[in-house]
């Protein structure tokens, strides 16, 4: 028989204003096995916790029920308090009478009745709780960073500087991410490559960092501290050890048709290519879809010209398997497709472009060598219209409900740069709101308006109409002057919404990390644990978690690194003891459970079993506690009722059901 103590928290007035806590205490005291019941304004406080300890000591309690906020908030706190008071932490259960009761109900009688029932369910469960011992697992002191944008690079450098090994897996031929595509960066207008390239070099030359570009994560198994990851190193057809990066292959390659992804498809590249001049590694890849040799067997020109014999058409994809203690996701973003926004004529006119395309056009290494010109006729635009919030803050399903956060600032940047370099070009910006919170951000925007004469119009654009003379007619409204506007433009730039890299779904599934309805990775707590995913050992860095500019990305990247370092600094981790366990007397070795276990935690052994005095050998299921994650799939599948989950046993859950339906 357990001796149970029930502790009811007021949570200031958060609970006590709606739930009659005295009544809950009074009802608790009547429950079978409850030897102590009290209430306290803040159970989680130092004083509240010491009341628990005192009651444990005084009454010899063996089990504890805390009626308080969600266990997601303070279960760990109360388990630790129990441990300090000398009882097993798994003898604690929480009745969630705040999030699930006082905060959603108004009527005191109703809320109190419900709180009493939730208390009873927790008491009924604790009666069946058994002490559980957390196991231990080793920590592999190496981290994996998925994605080599500025987020991934910064996280990797910070972890490596602390003395731990880090691998970066980057899908494209080079690290650098979107930042390598930008021309200048707000709010200081320094050149993106000038600040990014040194970071890329630092990562590449760091003794603790290994970079796998042109690679993807294929499979992830294991758990915090002990992940096993398969990485596909795609065939590069160029020997990384031999190549000197001279670039002669790219000059000679006769296949010049494929669209240049780095320049957002605004021009073409060769079949053998490095995406940009500062690429790291500075080793080209052959795009097998457009290489004549790989497609037809003829050509072989690059091989002939390569003086060091680095070209190898026989290369195959290679899968390498590595162990990691922690994984950081830094897969970044892309801009949304504009197919559903026919009104902006993006697909009809070459002179309607996205902001990211404009970055490439303004960049000296871009398709126009940095000259601002129309892609249709190469003429310099005299009138440019920027349209904000294209697909952002959108209430229908064509776009995204959220604010992309960076567009107001980069548009001010673009407008300013254009006005600076081409003073006789007029710039007009259509906006819904200008959002420039951030250090030196509003000042930056005001400079665009006040010093550079950028014309801001509050209002939306209904339509962009390409005209026969090659110009564009922009139809919009001016909400402040309350009038329709028809504006002739030579170029229209769309501040296109950003969305997480579409790959993130696949990655999240592999990692069992969760993503929200917009495909951004979910943090363990939106305020208090912003760089951890709810899955232990998985961390978030950069725009994959939500829209961010570079300063915020770098800050978050550092924060993620600190969390990783904290984890890797430990030699051993406590494992979740709420694992499955099979009753050898009941198990008939049918193998059903192993079939449903997602972690391969169940194996079978021939065991000598003492079945009520009769000795027999029998094939029985054995659960590896280090692999079992405690989902419970096996317990329901087991036809003989042999498999049960510790901490969430059949009897415990039935006791809760009974208490609720009593």
């Amino acid at each position, binding site marked *: 028989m357990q001796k149970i103590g029930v502790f009811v928290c007021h949570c200031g007035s958060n609970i006590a204003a709606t739930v009659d806590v005295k009544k809950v205490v009074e009802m608790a005291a009547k429950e079978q096995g409850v030897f102590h019941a009290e209430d306290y304004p803040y159970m989680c406080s130092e004083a509240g916790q010491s009341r628990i300890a005192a009651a444990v000591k005084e009454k010899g309690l063996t089990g504890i029920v805390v009626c308080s906020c969600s266990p*997601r908030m303070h279960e760990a706190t109360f388990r630790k308090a129990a441990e300090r008071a000398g009882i097993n932490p798994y003898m604690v259960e929480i009745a969630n009478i705040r999030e699930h009761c006082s905060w959603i109900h108004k009527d005191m009688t109703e809320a109190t009745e419900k709180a009493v029932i939730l208390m009873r369910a927790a008491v009924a469960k604790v009666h069946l709780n058994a002490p559980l011992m957390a196991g231990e697992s080793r920590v592999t002191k190496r981290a994996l960073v998925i994605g080599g944008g500025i987020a991934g690079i910064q996280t990797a450098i910070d972890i490596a500087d602390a003395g731990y090994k880090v691998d970066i897996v980057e899908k494209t031929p080079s690290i650098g991410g979107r930042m390598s595509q930008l021309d200048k960066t707000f709010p200081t207008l320094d050149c993106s490559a000038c600040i990014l390239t040194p970071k890329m070099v630092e990562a590449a030359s760091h003794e603790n960092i290994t970079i796998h570009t042109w690679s993807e994560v294929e499979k992830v198994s294991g758990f915090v501290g002990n992940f096993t990851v398969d990485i596909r190193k795609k065939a590069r057809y160029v020997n990384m050890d031999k190549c000197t990066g001279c670039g002669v292959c790219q000059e000679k390659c006769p296949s010049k048709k494929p669209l240049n992804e780095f320049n957002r498809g605004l021009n073409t590249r060769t079949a053998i290519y490095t995406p940009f001049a500062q690429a790291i590694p500075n080793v080209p890849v052959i795009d097998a879809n457009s290489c004549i040799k790989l497609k037809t067997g003829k050509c072989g020109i690059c091989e002939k010209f390569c003086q060091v014999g680095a070209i190898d058409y026989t290369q195959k994809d290679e899968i390498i398997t590595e162990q990691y203690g922690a994984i950081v996701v830094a897969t970044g973003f892309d801009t949304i497709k504009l197919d559903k926004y026919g009104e902006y004529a993006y697909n009809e006119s070459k002179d309607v472009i996205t902001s990211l395309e404009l970055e490439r056009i303004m960049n000296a290494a871009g398709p126009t060598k940095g000259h601002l010109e129309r892609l249709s006729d190469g003429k310099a635009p005299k009138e440019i219209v920027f349209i904000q919030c294209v697909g952002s803050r959108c209430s229908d399903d064509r776009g995204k409900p959220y604010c992309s956060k960076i567009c107001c600032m980069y548009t001010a940047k673009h407008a300013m740069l254009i006005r600076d370099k081409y003073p006789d070009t007029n710039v007009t910006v259509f906006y819904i709101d200008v959002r420039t919170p951030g250090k030196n951000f509003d000042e930056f925007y005001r400079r665009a308006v006040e010093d550079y004469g950028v014309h801001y119009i509050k209002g939306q654009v209904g339509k962009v109409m390409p005209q026969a003379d090659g110009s564009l007619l922009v139809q919009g409204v001016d909400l402040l002057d309350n009038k329709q506007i028809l504006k002739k433009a030579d170029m229209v730039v769309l501040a296109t919404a950003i969305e997480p890299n579409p790959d993130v779904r696949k990655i999240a599934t592999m990692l*069992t990390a969760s993503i929200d309805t917009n495909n951004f990775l979910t943090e363990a707590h939106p305020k208090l644990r912003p760089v951890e995913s709810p899955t232990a050992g998985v961390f978030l860095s950069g725009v994959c978690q939500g829209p961010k500019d570079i300063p915020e990305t770098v800050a978050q990247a550092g924060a993620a690194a600190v969390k990783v370092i904290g984890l890797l600094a430990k030699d051993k981790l406590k494992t979740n003891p709420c694992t499955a366990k099979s009753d050898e007397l009941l198990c008939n070795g049918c193998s059903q459970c192993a079939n449903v276990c997602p972690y391969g935690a169940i194996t079978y052994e021939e065991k000598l079993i003492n079945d009520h005095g009769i000795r027999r050998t029998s094939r029985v299921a054995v659960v590896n506690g280090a692999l079992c994650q405690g989902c419970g799939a096996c317990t329901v599948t087991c036809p003989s009722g042999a498999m049960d989950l510790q901490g969430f046993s059949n009897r415990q859950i039935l006791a809760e059901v009974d208490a609720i339906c009593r």
Partner: protein
Amino acid sequence: MPVNNENWKPTIVAFCCNWCSYAGADLAGSSRLAYPADVKIIKVPCSCRVNPMFILRAFEKGADGVILCGCHPGDCHYSTGNYYARRRMTLLFSMLDYLGIEEGRTRVEWVSAAEGVKFSETMNSFVEKVRTLGPSVRLGDLRCKN
């Protein structure tokens, strides 16, 4: 057995997986999104932990409705748990319907940790549905009193 009594309070058991739906319920709470107090939540690690036996027991003990909430397909913390749950519940619910526990008394719903609004809306509509069906008596006949 529909009742006209407005004061009738159904007993509703909601099984919520720890990773998504329980967190969704917490979010409904912190966003103060009300739903009837008739709903009592039991936390399970994953929707796949819910044994049909638990649901039968609930009806046996007098529950009027049982709802199972888990992560969206593809989002289960354990990858595939909710697929198992979905298959098991499809079978169980059709059997229950056959036994006279009408379809409206059972439901599976995917609620993510970000869907406080969906959690609250789901509970409101589920309770509403159960109210129109009235008290559940079919398994109550077999009720095994302790």
